[in-house]
């Protein structure tokens, strides 16, 4: 908020303020309660909401968004942003589809998807860290580039004929559990470990919170910044596999605009755009809340127009609650 001096808690002025103890619960964003409330309402009002298949559905439907939102959390922790994810996801998906159709090798195809994702991510990071162009601008640009590529590569046609080895990644089961759920859990655990148990993660917080501290500690922050964006690209590329599997096709506009939903989910999860203040599991909650809302409203057959408005109210409402809870 503009009128509050940016200085924040580190400014000498804070000397007068009593130091608040850091209790995890105090950092739980309003969205957690919203999620709980939604679940109760839907459990009471709609048949089949609590039905295991349906719960699995919610998880599976949220997986792709989660795969974008997790690295997006890290990027936003560095006070950055990535507007290109949706488009990169799309281009990765069509490249994967095209490769698998041409070569018949899913491994090669996945490799290609990961490569193009990582390439875009690296470009975003490099232009941000080394050319010092604001990430918003960089990724707005690469968004257009990726979108154009997807359309040119496919001439706006969908590419079909995915082998079982690809579709398995969305439709298949492992030990009786839908693969996407396993992917989602694995992805979260991996990102959690990365963020909270490695140098990389520590430096992500530092990049957003106090880059000078990093420099004084003799750490090359720029490399890690590029790394964060590259990681985002890589995860996006992998999400391309699930997207392709889900449609058993590559489609040139399938995921346009998904990055905005990812950013919204991250914000819902209580991660702020400043000072590297965020919480990875909050992002999971944010993604699930949107998923549960859509699913529940579908089960109830609520008109689509109401759904659209409801999502907006959710985003604004949850953040409003959070801002009420944080002293001005």
């Amino acid at each position, binding site marked *: *908020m*503009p*009128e509050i*001096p*940016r200085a924040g808690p580190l400014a000498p002025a804070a000397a007068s303020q009593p130091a608040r103890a850091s209790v995890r619960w105090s950092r739980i964003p309003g969205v957690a309660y919203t999620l709980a409330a939604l679940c109760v309402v839907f459990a009471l009002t709609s048949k089949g909401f609590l039905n295991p298949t349906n719960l699995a559905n919610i998880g599976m439907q949220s997986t792709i968004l989660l795969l974008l939102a997790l690295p997006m959390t890290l990027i936003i922790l560095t006070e950055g942003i990535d507007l290109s994810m949706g488009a990169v996801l799309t281009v990765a998906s069509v490249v994967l589809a095209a490769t698998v159709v041409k070569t018949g090798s899913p491994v090669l195809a996945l490799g290609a998807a990961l490569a193009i994702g990582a390439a875009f991510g690296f470009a975003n990071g490099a*232009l941000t860290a080394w*050319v*010092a*162009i*604001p990430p*918003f*601008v*960089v990724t*707005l*640009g*690469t*968004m*257009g*580039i*990726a*979108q*154009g*590529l997807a*359309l*040119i590569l496919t*001439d*706006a046609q969908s590419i079909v004929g995915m082998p079982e080895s690809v579709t398995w990644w969305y439709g298949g089961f492992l030990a009786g559990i839908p693969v996407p759920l396993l992917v989602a859990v694995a992805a979260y655990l991996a990102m959690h470990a990365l963020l909270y148990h490695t140098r990389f993660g520590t430096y992500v917080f530092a990049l957003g919170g106090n880059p000078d501290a990093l420099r004084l500690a003799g750490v090359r922050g720029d490399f890690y910044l590029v790394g964060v964006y590259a990681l985002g690209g890589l995860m996006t590329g992998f999400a391309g596999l699930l997207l392709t599997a889900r449609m058993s096709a590559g489609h040139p506009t399938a995921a346009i605009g998904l990055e*905005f939903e990812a*950013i*919204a989910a991250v*914000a819902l999860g209580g991660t*702020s*755009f400043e000072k590297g203040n965020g919480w990875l599991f909050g992002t999971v909650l944010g993604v699930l809340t949107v998923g549960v809302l859509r699913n529940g409203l579908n089960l109830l057959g609520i*008109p*689509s*127009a*109401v*759904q*659209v*408005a*409801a*999502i*907006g*109210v*959710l*985003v*604004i409402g949850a*953040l*409003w609650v959070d*801002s009420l809870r944080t002293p*001005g």
Partner: protein
Amino acid sequence: MSELVAGLPKHDWSGEFKAIGYRLLAVAAMCIALALVSDAFLTWNNVLNVLRQAALLFLLASGLTLVILTAGLDLSVGANVALSACLAGTVMKATGSPALGAALGLACGTLIGAVNGLLVTKARIPPFIATYGMLWVVHGVTYWYMAGSTVHGFPANFRALGSGYWLGIPIPVYLMFLFLAIGVLFAQRTTWGQEIYAVGANPVAARLSGVPIHRRLVLVYALSGAMAGLASLIFLARLNAAEGDIGESLTLPAIAAVLIGGTSLFGGIGTVGGTLVGALILTLVLNGMNLLALNPNSQPLVTGVIVILAVYLDMLTRKRTRS
């Protein structure tokens, strides 16, 4: 103190005009190139044509420029255009009064903008998220209100606003230059404009200098909304019809135009004039690609490259004026 002056850079002419100068050169270069490759380009009609297409983009982007000048953002302008246009259109049909319809359209746009401003200032929600949430809400209302129908066929006197000519020049072009003038006057020649720049450059200093920053921010978002409302009227008048999805493709190009126009995301730096040039550059590219019948699929790609290039060159020129 004289030795203090030594070593300070001589700041010959204010960076903004310089920045616009560079961009105008770019525009000129593009025009020459297009004229060489397509004989259809340098025809009077096509020039008007480019200007008319730039008009809609500029009207939308001009309001957005003020928002970005305060280090804010408004992702809801596209949705805003859709709702305002549909409301204005249906009311016009129902009452047969263009004036009433237009008034409601403008009012609707302004209201949405004002709410954005309140969410950003009073509810302290980051502009990105607040206006993104607003985008969904407004879309929802539009879909519900229109229920998939199209409103079309408006009185000729109203449609002249979009498709009419005066002295052989399309009305929207006049509107574009009118609001360019108004925008420049507001930003450069009013105390409010000065305060808005100050709020963008340093909100704390602005507040401690007695600038009512909340009121100015709400004003800025409301103006952005109002311009969206106005754009929606031009839209309505040009297409003589409106449905729920017209706004979706407008927001990002508008933001791109502002950035290409040299307005800084960090606030305090930029001009409405620059945004006009930005809008012209974008329109020229699309126009040229159409004239040359290039693959339309590559349009987003080209736009993306231009955005990055423009901002990068901008940084270079600023660095030069600074060191």
